[in-house]
C-alpha cells in the first residue's frame, strides 16, 4: 500500500507549527514537525554586555520569559563561580526567585488546561460545551502573575533577577498582598479546577481515588477515560530533569530506574527541513517536562498512574495539571517562611568579572531550560539556549523517532494525533529562538 502524505497547519499552540503526516496502511508512520521563523536571539546577544542577557533572553518567549531570565542569571552566577568567585545568594533571594518561577509555571499550566487541552479535547470528541474556558484561564493566570509582579515588577518580561540576588526589597505589605493572591488562586483551584480542598487533593496517592477529583480537572480526566484515550500517546518512556528544583531533583528515569545526569553530555544538532535544533543526552532522546519531573521526583500519584498507563497521554496530561497543586502549595510555604531581614542582593556592584563561562539551568513550564554564556572582556562571545521543546519535538535520530513523533505514531487520524501533539504543551517560539 502506498504512503499518503498530509500537511496540517496547527494553531492555538504557542505560535504555529506545520505537521507533515505520513500515513502507511491507514496509520501514522512518521510526522515532520516544522516551525516558523528563526529569530536568532543567540546571535543578537553576541558582542553585548554579559548582563544584557537578562533583558534580551526573556524575549525568547512570551509565556516562559521568567524561566529564561532565571536561566540567564544562573549562567552568569555559575560563570563567576567557575572563575573562582562564588556568589552566595541569601535564602531570601533564592526563595523569591523560586516563588516567581512557581507563579509563571502555574500561569502556564492553567492556560494550557483551559485554552488548549479542554477546548481541543471537547472539539475532537464533538462534545463542545458552551463554557468560556478562557475566562477561567485568564482569571487564575492574571491573579498569579500579579503575585509574581509584586516582586518582579511585571510579567511578562521582567529582569528583576541580577547576579547576586534580586532587585526588589519587599516589605511585609508586599508579602501580605502576594499571600492573598496565592490564597485566591488556591481557592479557585479548589472550587473550580478540582472541587476538592487542596490538601485533600494532594493526599491522593492511588489511581482508584482519582474519581474524587471533580471540577474541570475531573471532567478532563473523565473525558479522556471514557473516550478510550487513556493509553494512547505513549513514547519512549525515558525522562530527564536537569534543574534541581522544588518539583524534582535532577536526574533521569528510564522506565522507573533513576540515575544522575550532567548537562555536559547534552548535544544539540541541526535538523533537516526545520529551523529547530534537536537535542539529545548521550545520543539518546528523553522527554522533559512535568511528566519527567513527576517520574524523577517520584511523585506517588504520577508514578502510580505511570505504572498503569505508562507514558501515555493521560499520564502526561495529569502530571502537568497536578504540578499546579504542588506549586500552589509550595508558593504558599515560600511566602510564609520568607525572611525579609536578609539582603536581596549580595554581589558588590563593582564586582564585575570580565572573563567567564557559565551554565544556567531552570525547570521551566515545559521542562529543562539551559543557557550557556561565554564572556570575554565583559562581552558575550557565545550564547547557547537549549529549550524544553527541543527535547520533546525533535524528529529523532537514526535509531528512533522523536518523543512527540513516537507518541503520535500509530494513530489513525490527524485529529487524534494533533491532540496528542498538544499534550506536550507545544511552544513554537521557544523552539525557534
Amino acid at each position: 500500500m502506498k504512503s499518503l502524505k498530509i500537511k496540517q497547519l496547527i494553531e492555538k499552540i504557542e505560535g504555529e507549527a506545520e505537521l507533515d503526516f505520513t500515513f502507511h496502511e491507514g496509520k501514522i508512520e512518521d510526522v515532520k514537525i516544522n516551525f516558523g521563523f528563526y529569530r536568532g536571539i543567540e546571535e543578537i546577544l553576541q558582542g553585548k554586555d554579559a548582563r544584557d542577557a537578562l533583558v534580551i533572553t526573556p524575549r525568547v518567549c512570551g509565556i516562559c520569559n521568567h524561566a529564561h531570565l532565571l536561566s540567564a542569571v544562573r549562567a552568569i552566577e555559575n560563570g563567576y563561580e567557575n572563575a573562582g568567585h562564588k556568589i552566595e545568594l541569601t535564602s531570601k533571594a533564592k526563595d523569591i526567585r523560586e516563588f516567581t518561577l512557581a507563579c509563571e509555571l502555574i500561569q502556564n499550566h492553567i492556560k494550557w488546561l483551559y485554552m488548549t487541552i479542554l477546548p481541543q479535547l471537547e472539539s475532537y470528541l464533538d462534545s463542545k460545551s458552551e463554557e468560556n474556558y478562557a475566562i477561567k484561564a485568564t482569571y487564575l493566570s492574571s491573579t498569579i502573575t500579579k503575585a509574581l509582579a509584586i516582586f518582579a515588577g511585571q510579567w511578562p518580561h521582567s529582569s528583576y533577577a541580577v547576579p547576586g540576588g534580586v532587585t526588589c526589597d519587599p516589605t511585609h505589605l508586599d508579602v501580605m498582598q502576594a499571600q492573598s493572591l496565592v490564597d485566591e488562586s488556591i481557592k479557585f483551584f479548589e472550587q473550580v479546577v478540582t472541587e476538592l480542598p487542596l490538601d485533600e487533593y494532594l493526599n491522593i496517592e492511588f489511581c482508584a481515588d482519582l474519581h474524587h477529583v471533580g471540577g474541570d480537572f475531573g471532567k478532563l480526566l473523565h473525558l479522556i477515560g471514557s473516550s478510550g484515550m487513556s493509553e494512547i500517546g505513549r513514547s519512549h518512556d525515558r525522562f530527564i530533569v536537569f534543574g534541581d528544583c522544588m518539583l524534582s531533583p535532577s536526574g533521569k528515569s528510564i522506565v522507573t530506574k533513576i540515575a544522575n545526569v550532567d548537562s555536559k553530555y547534552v548535544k544539540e544538532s541541526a535538523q533537516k527541513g526545520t529551523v529547530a535544533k534537536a537535542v539529545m543526552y548521550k545520543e539518546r532522546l528523553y522527554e522533559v517536562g512535568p511528566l519527567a519531573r513527576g517520574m524523577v521526583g517520584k511523585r506517588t500519584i504520577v508514578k502510580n498512574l505511570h505504572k498503569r498507563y505508562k507514558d501515555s497521554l493521560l499520564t502526561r496530561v495529569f502530571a502537568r495539571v497536578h504540578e499546579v497543586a504542588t506549586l500552589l502549595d509550595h508558593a504558599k510555604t515560600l511566602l510564609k517562611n520568607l525572611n525579609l531581614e536578609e539582603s536581596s542582593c549580595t554581589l558588590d556592584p563593582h564586582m564585575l568579572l570580565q572573563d567567564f563561562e557559565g551554565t544556567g539551568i531552570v525547570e521551566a513550564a515545559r521542562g529543562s531550560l539551559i543557557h550557556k554564556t561565554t564572556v570575554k572582556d565583559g562581552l558575550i562571545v557565545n550564547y547557547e539556549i537549549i529549550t524544553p521543546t527541543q527535547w520533546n519535538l525533535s524528529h529523532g535520530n537514526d535509531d528512533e523517532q522523536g518523543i512527540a513523533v513516537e507518541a503520535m505514531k500509530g494513530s489513525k487520524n490527524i485529529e487524534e494525533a494533533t491532540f496528542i501533539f498538544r499534550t506536550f504543551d507545544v511552544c513554537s517560539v521557544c523552539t525557534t529562538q
Partner: protein
Amino acid sequence: MEKPHLLWLQSITCNGNTHSFLNHPDLFSILSHYNIVHHPALDGSHSFDDVLKDDVPCDVLILEGSFIEKGFLKGGVEVSFILEKYAKKAKYIITAGTCATFGGVFKQKDPSNISGFCFDLEEKSIRYDAYASKLISLPGCPVHPKWLSYVLLMLANGKQIPIDNLHRPTELFGYTVHNGCTRNEYFEWKIDADNYGLKEGCLFYAQGCQGPYTRGSCNKILWNDISSKTRAGTPCFGCTEASFPQTSLFQTKTNMGIPAKMPLGIPKRAYLSLTGVTKSFKIKRFSTRLLEYDK
C-alpha cells in the same frame, strides 16, 4: 449596529504582547465591544487557515511582531502578504509592541530587512504613506494591557485618539516612565542607589535606568495592576523607545560622572545647575534606611 471586527495577527514575535493582554482584568468586557475574527490564543469566528486562504472581515487590525518582506511563511503564504492584505482592509491598525511599531529586539538579527510595520526605528517605512491615516502605535516590550484596552475602547466608542508624530497616543506616551516612580525623591536630591535590591536610591545614576527619558506611563498605570520595573528596583530599559534594546543595560553611561543622556527635554545646563545645588546639601534622611528614620 454591528460590532467592529477585530483581527489579531502575528509576525516575528515571542507572543509576549498576546500574553500581556491576557493579564487584563477586564479582558472580556473590553472584547465584548468587538467581534473577534481571529486571535492567537482566544476563540474567534475564523480559523487561522481561513485568515490565510479566505478574505475574512477586518475593521480593527492588531499587529504583533517585527516585519519582514520576504522569507517568513505561514501555511505556504508570505506573512507580509497576509499583513498587507488585512492592513488595506482595516479601518484602524494598532501596532502592539515595540517590534510591530519600530522593529524591536528581532530587528537586530537582520537590521536591513527587519523593521516595524510602518516605521523602521523612527524612520517612516515604505508602507507608512499607505497606512498613516489609520495607524496607532503602541510600543512597549511587551505592550501594556491597559494601553491596548484604552485604544480598543476609544475606537469602540467612536472617539478620536490624540497621537504624536510617531502615532503614539499622547495620553499614554506624553508621560515618561519616571513620572510616578516611587524613587522620585531620590532623583530630586540626586541620591543614587548603592546596589540592587534596596528600596532606597535612584537608579538613574549608576544602574542604567532610562526612566527619565523614556516615554510611557508604566508608573502611572501599573503593570499587572500592582507594580513596575523601577518600583521593583529594576532599571527602566527604555523598552517603549525605537532604540530598544540598547547595550550595557545595567550601567548608566556617564560623561565625567554625569549621566550622558539628560531627562526628556531638560537642557544639560539646567540639569547641572540643579545637581550642583542639591549635591551641596547632606541630608540625613537620605543616608538612613527609609523605614529606620523615625525610629
